[in-house]
């Protein structure tokens, strides 16, 4: 297997704060890999180490087989990065943003112009070439950031929460573009706390919290392993449901006025519960990655 990233026992501390703690993972070529976690889990700190922005406190990190601490420039020349903020250049036009960025990679001018026009077309931005960055909407900004990250023809694309703050249309457009890129063989590393995004895009993912790895696997496998096939959501349950479930040793979680019950294949259980304990709604649905995420990282608010 051709490994794009090999991270062993990564650690990152800021003074006394431990942002990333003993984190190991690896990504193979052509894979879309997700890092999930609540705010403050250490996702951004992790990928910043990968793209050479932050030095490691401890551990070993190889990208394309190169040690990032020893060869940061060689590594950075081969990756594309979409940071969390849209740090486009507000003093330059859309096209110039790409051309100026291409210079940082020492791409010759005619080649930079060719690639920029192609990327703007790919991201459906060709009609905005001469627009100024402050005039673009959130969705257009994101697409321009992605176009910019692709200017050096990267072998690995790193995205930090690529769709946070976008409207549903723009979000789907970003997903479609990422799917196209993945189909073209590009390796992708992304962080997100959008579970739909992770399920849809990621071949494999890790969930982390408090700087540590909780689980690793394929989205569907994780759902099956940690929650099961189906979930029953009972809102405003009648008294006694908790005892009933405990008696039958069925896993459940209480969430305010709702109880969420994992049921493998329990149509009998569904009928019984909906008849005996329902006072509000009672819905059976497929288990999702969000159920896994909330089960593993808890339901309390972060930050």
């Amino acid at each position: 297997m051709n490994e794009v990233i090999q991270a062993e026992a990564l650690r990152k501390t800021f003074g006394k704060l431990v942002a990333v703690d003993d984190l190991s993972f690896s990504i193979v070529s052509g894979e879309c890999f997700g890092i999930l976690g609540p705010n403050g889990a250490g996702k951004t700190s992790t990928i910043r180490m990968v793209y050479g922005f932050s030095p490691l406190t401890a551990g070993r990190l190889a990208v394309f087989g190169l040690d990032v601490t020893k060869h940061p420039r060689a590594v950075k020349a081969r990756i594309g990065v979409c940071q969390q903020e849209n740090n486009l250049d507000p003093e330059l036009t859309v096209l110039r943003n790409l051309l100026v960025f291409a210079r940082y990679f020492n791409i010759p001018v005619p080649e930079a112009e060719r690639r920029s026009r192609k990327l703007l077309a790919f991201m459906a931005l060709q009609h905005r070439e001469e627009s100024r960055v402050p005039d673009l909407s959130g969705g257009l900004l994101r697409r321009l950031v992605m176009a910019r990250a692709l200017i050096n023809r990267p072998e690995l694309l790193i995205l930090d929460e690529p769709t946070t703050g976008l409207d549903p249309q723009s979000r789907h457009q970003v997903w479609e573009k990422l799917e196209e890129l993945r189909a073209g063989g590009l390796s992708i590393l992304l962080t997100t706390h959008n579970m739909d995004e992770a399920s849809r895009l990621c071949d494999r993912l890790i969930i982390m919290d408090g700087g540590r790895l909780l689980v690793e696997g394929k989205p569907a496998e994780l759902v099956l392993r940690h929650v099961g096939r189906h979930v029953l959501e009972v809102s405003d349950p009648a008294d006694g449901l908790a005892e009933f479930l405990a008696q039958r040793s069925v896993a459940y979680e209480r969430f305010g006025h709702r109880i969420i019950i994992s049921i493998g294949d329990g149509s009998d259980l569904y009928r019984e519960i909906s008849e005996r304990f329902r006072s509000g709604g009672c819905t059976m649905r497929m288990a999702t990655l969000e159920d896994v995420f909330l089960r593993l990282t808890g339901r309390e608010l972060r930050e």
Partner: protein
Amino acid sequence: MRIYPPLSGRFLRVWQRNLTAYRQSWKVSFIPPLLEPLFYLLAFGAGLSGLIGNVRYQGEEISYVRFIAPALIAITVMNSAFFENTYASFVRMYYYKTFDAMMATPLTVEEIIAGEILWGATKSVIATTIMMGVISGFGLIRYPEGLLLIPLAFLGGLAFGSAGMICTAVTPNIELFNLPVFLFITPMFLFSGTFFPIENLPLWAQKTASLLPLTNLVDLSRAFTNGRIDILVFTGFCYLAAFASVSFPLAIGTMRRRLIK
């Protein structure tokens, strides 16, 4: 020192970025260095010189306008680079996040900061060249010696730009640039032999003033404008070169500490 290999010729790419942005708005950026010397020469030349008459400078009587014209150039060199590498660099670093974006490319922090300071010095050169045009129109610059003002502007720009960049590295917010401007720039603007000879000051103040970078820059500027190249030029040059060669690596070092998290 870890200046090399983190600092490659790629720092020119950062300089180029600023040039590209400047060229998009050059028509506006051109106006201040064009009008400022005109206002000053009008106010001091027509307004004040009647009251003052001639000034004794280095044992020679010269008109007040001839006395302040080179000082105006030196002040412009200082202000162009210092304000570029404080307010403008801070805006790029903190508000535009331009440096963050650059750090995800093969550029290093060393190259980003070197490119920024080089751009600050370039702004000094651009402003100086425009001012020279205006001041030459009044016949106040002797050529060819006057052409030395251009490399002088570059050296002075490196010195003051680096000093500005150190302020950018340590300031928590943009309002606090008032502090170095108040403590550093304004006193120099007034007391560096700019509008009156420092010999008019008490001895202790003369000694202090002669240590200021702007005093040295003003003396060099006067020497080049009036075509008096002597040994004082050499010491002044050494002073500015020494100032730049200390503040430039210091600026890079302090910015490294600020940017690398």
